[in-house]
């Protein structure tokens, strides 16, 4: 089920009630686990079998990995687990894509081959829970942490419904210790959680679905070359839509968990205020970028094997990061562009050591992909910082074209429309749509810039209570007035 549905509201109310009953902690955990399975099965019941399979296999393989003294056996177990987890992901997510590419390849070699089109349904959230279980298995192999003793705790770690289908991607040390002792939210935590849920739904339902989806879809579904203004408005609309959609989901997830007394890691920190691409990846889908850093970039060698290998590792990480988002070459190009931007940043830094890096002192846990940051000369004055943030936002928008366009023809046509290579392009968007996109984009950038070193609950706490009440009311009134319910979150398809 999705957070923006009546089903979830009823489900959540029941869960809050059950979780606050005077029951033993183990019973509450069982309640949470059953509820998490119901949450998942309410979308497509048969796919819950996959979730069970992944949970059981990784629990037992994880324990053996940790305790097994024989090196070869441990490697074999790791390979079995990786094949199991990644095999399911590859089959369901990339099966059709691989078959299509194989068909193109053999036909290009002169062999006529036309297989039947497979009809594979992508299980919701498979990319997310696969990464959750993978990190556990790899940690067990490397003996980074102790195995989870209880199957109940492990199952709940994998399945806990707030993060199950679209993250944040959690690591065992972030969540499992929270299952060890009884947790319920106190009054303040509950209200903070509800505020975050309201904010997340406002971002998703009002801003992403109600205001920005229509102009973005109109522009990106067009088969014609467009007027430059329409093309830019469409891209900006998508830029806002995907942020509000995904960050809205993460905010809801964190809020829902908070209402139950749990803490999930932050997933977005105002990414459109990023100064540079390493900063962007500190702020956008943080738990994925951290996962890719720890389980892909660093094992590849990170920046420890010289500049050239660092560039290659960055590119490999971003290419695979792109492919993680979807089985299409457009996502690979999207990842490649981000990889290129990161490489360019690193190159500038290496070229001119005097522009020493300015460490980000605000974020408690630096999780940049490569540990690089924007050159200092671009960060000395607030105004130049802001210009650099705008420049970064501009480049990010260019990458979104490949992310959203259904194919390369559409992407090139869109880029041509954006950069003035089209004359007399089609005019599609109404003045109202343009006004909506402009107001929301300016508001979004201003908010991101103001909030870039702040946290929403910190700011909310400092506001006079009646101001917070008014803002909260406005969000809920607009949310209810939108009457947009149950539309899927974009990231569910990843």
């Amino acid at each position, binding site marked *: 089920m999705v957070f923006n549905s*009546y089903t979830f509201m009823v489900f959540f109310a029941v869960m809050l009630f059950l979780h606050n009953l005077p029951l033993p902690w183990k019973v509450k955990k069982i309640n949470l686990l059953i509820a998490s399975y119901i949450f998942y099965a*309410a979308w497509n019941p048969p796919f819950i079998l996959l979730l069970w399979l992944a949970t059981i296999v990784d629990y037992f393989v994880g324990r053996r990995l940790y305790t097994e003294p024989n090196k070869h056996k441990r490697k074999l177990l790791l390979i079995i687990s990786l094949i199991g987890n990644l095999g399911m992901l590859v089959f369901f997510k990339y099966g059709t894509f691989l078959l299509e590419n194989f068909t193109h390849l053999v036909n290009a070699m002169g062999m006529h081959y036309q297989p039947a089109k497979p009809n594979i349904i992508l299980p919701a959230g498979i990319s997310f829970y696969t990464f959750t279980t993978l990190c556990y298995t790899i940690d067990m192999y490397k003996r980074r942490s102790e195995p989870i003793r209880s199957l109940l705790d492990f199952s709940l770690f994998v399945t806990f419904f707030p993060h199950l289908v679209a993250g944040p991607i959690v690591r065992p040390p972030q969540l499992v210790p929270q299952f060890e002792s009884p947790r319920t939210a106190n009054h303040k935590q509950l209200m903070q959680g509800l*505020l975050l849920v309201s904010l997340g739904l406002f971002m998703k339902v009002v801003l992403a679905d*109600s205001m920005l989806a229509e102009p973005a879809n109109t522009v990106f579904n067009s088969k014609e070359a467009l007027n430059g203004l329409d093309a830019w408005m469409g891209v900006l609309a998508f830029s806002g839509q995907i942020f509000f959609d995904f960050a809205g989901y993460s905010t809801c997830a964190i809020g829902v968990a908070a209402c139950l007394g749990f803490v999930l890691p932050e997933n977005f920190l105002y990414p459109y205020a990023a100064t540079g691409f390493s900063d962007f990846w500190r702020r956008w889908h943080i738990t994925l970028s951290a996962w890719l850093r720890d389980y892909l970039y660093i094992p590849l060698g990170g920046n420890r094997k010289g500049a050239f290998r660092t560039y290659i590792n960055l590119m490999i990480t971003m290419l695979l990061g792109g492919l993680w988002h979807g089985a299409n070459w457009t996502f690979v190009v999207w990842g490649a562009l981000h990889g290129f931007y990161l490489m360019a940043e690193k190159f500038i830094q290496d070229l001119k050591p005097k522009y020493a890096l300015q460490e980000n002192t605000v974020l408690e846990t630096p999780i940049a992909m490569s540990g690089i940051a924007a050159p200092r000369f671009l960060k000395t004055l607030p105004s130049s910082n802001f210009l650099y943030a705008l420049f970064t936002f501009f480049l990010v928008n260019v990458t979104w074209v490949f992310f959203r366009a259904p194919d390369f023809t559409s992407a090139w046509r869109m880029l041509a429309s954006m950069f003035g290579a089209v004359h007399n392009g089609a005019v599609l968007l*109404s003045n109202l749509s343009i006004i909506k996109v402009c107001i929301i984009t300016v508001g979004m950038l201003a908010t991101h810039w103001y909030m870039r070193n702040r946290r929403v609950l910190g700011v909310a706490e400092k*506001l006079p209570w*009646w101001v917070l009440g008014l803002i909260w009311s406005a969000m809920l009134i607009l949310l209810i007035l939108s009457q947009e319910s149950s539309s899927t979150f974009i990231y569910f398809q990843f």
Partner: protein
Amino acid sequence: MLTSSFSRAGILMLIIVLAFFVGWEIHLRNKGIKIAYDDGESLWADKRAMVYEAADKATVFIGSSRNKFDLDIATWQKLTGDHAIQLAIEGNSPLPVLADLAADENFKGKLVIDVTEGLFFSTSPKNIAEPSKRVAYYKKRTPAQRFSFLVNHQLENGLVFLNKDHLSLNALLEEIPIPRRKGVFALPNGCPMDFNPCNFERQCIMTDRFEKDTTIQKQVTGLWDFYRSVSKDPPANAAKTDSMIAIIHKDIDKIKARGGKVIFVRSPSSGPYWEGEQRGFPRALYWEKILATTGVNGIHFKDYPAIDHFICPEFSHLKQSDAIVYTQNLAKILEQEKGWKFAKSPITSN
């Protein structure tokens, strides 16, 4: 005691939100606005799931908007004892729905197909997009979506402001008088709220205000003119029409082979709309042809004095008082002339 600013803010939020929506609801009711249901894919799928009811107790209706206005469901159910399952979709071709029912081995019931020629014989992919989407939604709807629909139904039963087409945030923003952007496709004035409020059985009933107010009626006739002026559909040539009829024939044969009953109905239209339809879709080339090719019976409103005289307020759909008369006669014709059997006899129950 509420010590946290979050708690106090939460209480204030509750008071403001409740006050706002109570005020908004009262305001709308004072304006005479009545309960209406969101006639989207969820409501359609809810009705689609009912087509498996016993053939002697239910009739399925597919087509375009005329079916939704002209069939008075309460009258139909009272007269025939049959459950009327309305699957027509306004502004669209019924052919994807026909194909879906034909492919469904479990559907063996009675089917009434409304023929609005401009949509029925349309070659535009736009006219099959929405029905295809709804069929796909029905097939893929999740348990969570079904439950949300049930909750939404309870809320819509009691709240006027839940009206997505006319009272949602976007619909309200559309009311702001912002100049049109040159070259952008846009409806002249939108569809007035009084024209097509939909009930839970998916029947559209014009409001009293619409029936009386010629200004609002002209707003809708203006829409029809606009649609005609912007239509870029290629004219359906004879070959294309023949191939469409061949597909329809196959679909109908599948239903009939399972014991189902099918009939075509040409619902009333009037004034310049009817004149335009006669010119654009001559009866011999379309209506007669589809009956002859498929071997299915048809009821054309012009063939029956009891239903040939209605004046549609906006030339295309019946007001409710006429819909009642039309429905009574339709049921009688079906029983008397076409040999359809119902749970109750429309003739004796009238």
